[in-house]
């Protein structure tokens, strides 16, 4: 039986999962990512280990990566709440990290910042189809004049796209024109831009030494890890209905939702209709590297009522001082409290808002963004959940606002969400089998 190897080259760990052609997991191995020397060293170390488990060489390899900071992008739109937001959602949906979002005309400081940040790809949007052309052309000109050439995905007003691309190409930018992220007011169409970003990912992300050599061994193009997770969730949602997936990491907390875009009767929807499959990333909410901002966001009541408050506070101070540290035995409750706060903040930011206003005709509810109340399932992903004595405590959210009201809680117990996502396109049956194997009801 054929062996498929699924590799996730993370920023700290390279994780390999081996599955047979039925989708049964037949091996898992990991090794530290060797981004400083050559990523192949870490890959080879994990390969040696997994081949011992499977007893043979694999038949094909699929891989995703978030090493060397992952795919870092800048998005530019016109009105921040409209094409600016559409561009941001497209970048996130492609699995990239958003360094900055700019609105209106780029000024000299913005351009200097872009030059200094050197994103892997810049997404240039602005104007609905047939709408504002000026912003796209002026921003293209400003970039061409002031910024050294970058890969650009141009996803703005189709009536200005070609001209904008020519302006950029004249100074050496490589430009991929794709569908407008907001072809009509408040209507998103981010899939073409996402696809263009994913395609560019491989050809431009060779920052990590050895990545290019590794990619030659792959059965399909290397994709950003969050894009793999998004694909796995999509496959699950097709079977299980509307769901929410929360991936708690050391540096960020990612939230993926599938559904939640319907407007309940009697409500008025305002603003952009969010994408059915939506990803957001909270860069200031994480269990280690972003712990200080998580604690700050959670507020001073975070440890209120904790049974061992003093001990917890001391332990928290140690974690803040040393992100590599593991929580001391007996104090796992602190980790649960922190992770629970991370989930709550990240999901609240992912969710839309519901506002009751009083009109002369009576109260009216205005809905904007994602309505997560009827999400059937919440799936937790990440080491902190897998290793926790109380994953239910972490994933349980208070019923408030647009948060899920009565979801079934599940855990990606084998931590294979990204690996399964790699097979979601080429081998969906195998991916389903892997997910069924790993998902555990809580």
């Amino acid at each position, binding site marked *: 039986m054929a062996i498929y190897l699924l590799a996730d080259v993370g920023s700290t760990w390279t994780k390999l999962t081996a599955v047979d052609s039925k989708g049964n997991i037949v091996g898992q191995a990991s090794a530290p990512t060797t981004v400083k020397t050559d990523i192949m060293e870490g890959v080879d170390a994990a390969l040696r280990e997994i081949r011992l488990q499977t007893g043979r060489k694999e038949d094909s390899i699929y891989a995703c990566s978030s090493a060397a900071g992952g795919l870092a992008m800048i998005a530019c739109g016109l009105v921040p709440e409209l094409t600016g937001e559409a561009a941001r959602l497209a970048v996130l949906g492609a699995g990239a990290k958003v360094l900055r979002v700019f609105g209106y005309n780029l000024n000299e400081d913005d351009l200097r910042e872009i030059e200094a940040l050197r994103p892997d790809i810049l997404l240039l949007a602005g*104007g*609905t189809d*047939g709408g*504002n052309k000026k912003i796209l052309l002026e921003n293209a000109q400003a970039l061409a004049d002031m910024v050294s050439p970058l890969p650009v995905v141009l996803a703005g007003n189709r009536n200005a796209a070609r001209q904008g691309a020519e302006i950029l190409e004249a100074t050496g930018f490589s430009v991929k024109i794709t569908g407008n992220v*907001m072809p009509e*007011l408040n209507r998103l169409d981010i899939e073409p831009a996402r696809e263009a970003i994913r395609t560019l990912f491989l050809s431009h992300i060779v920052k990590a030494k050895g990545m290019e050599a590794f990619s030659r061994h792959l059965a399909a193009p290397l994709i950003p890890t969050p894009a793999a997770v998004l694909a796995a969730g999509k496959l699950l949602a097709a079977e299980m209905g509307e769901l929410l997936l929360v991936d708690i990491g050391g540096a960020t907390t990612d939230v993926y939702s599938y559904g939640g875009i319907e407007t309940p009767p009697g409500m008025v929807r*305002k603003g952009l209709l969010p994408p059915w499959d939506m990803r957001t990333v909270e860069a200031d909410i994480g269990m280690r590297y972003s712990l200080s901002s998580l604690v700050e966001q959670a507020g001073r009541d975070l440890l209120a009522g904790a049974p061992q408050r003093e001990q917890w506070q001391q332990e928290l101070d140690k974690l803040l001082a040393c992100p590599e540290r593991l929580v001391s035995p007996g104090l796992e409750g602190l980790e649960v409290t922190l992770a629970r706060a991370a989930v709550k903040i990240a999901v609240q930011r992912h969710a839309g808002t519901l506002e009751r*206003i009083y*009109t002369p005709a009576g109260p009216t509810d205005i809905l904007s963004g994602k309505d997560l109340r009827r999400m059937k399932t919440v799936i937790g992903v990440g080491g902190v959940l897998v290793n926790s004595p109380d994953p239910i405590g972490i994933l349980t959210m208070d019923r408030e606002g647009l948060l899920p009201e009565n979801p079934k809680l599940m855990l990606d117990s084998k931590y294979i969400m990204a690996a399964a996502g790699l097979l979601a396109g080429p081998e969906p049956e195998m991916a389903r089998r892997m997910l069924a194997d790993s998902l555990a009801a809580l």
Partner: protein
Amino acid sequence: MATIVLGVIGSDVHAIGNKILEYAFTEAGFKVVNLGVLTTKKEFVQAAIETDARAILVSSLYGHGEIDCRGLREMCIEAGIGDILLYVGGNLVVGKQEWEPVRDKFLAMGFDRVFPPATMPDEAIALLKQDLGVS
């Protein structure tokens, strides 16, 4: 085809006239960006910027039009679209007031055309075509 932004301003939920206007202006050949009911000034301005609209058509049916519409022209100027045509119509004030002072008040606010209650869409369409120089 000229793009126009249409909507009912403020805490006003009168949806039917809005749908009729959307239909009538679309039939007349305009590209209508309809923001619907409960639309804020900011939404009108942002939509006009993004779609490069040539006119904003504001409806107000519930009597609070004066307070809702105040400052719309200034917001357009601030946002760089100060030259855009602004139309307003509906039951703009509470009760039965004399029309001319009401009209003058809205003209002074920076609206280019002010329409009294029971104006038929055709009348506004003809004037808009005239103001935009389109046929």
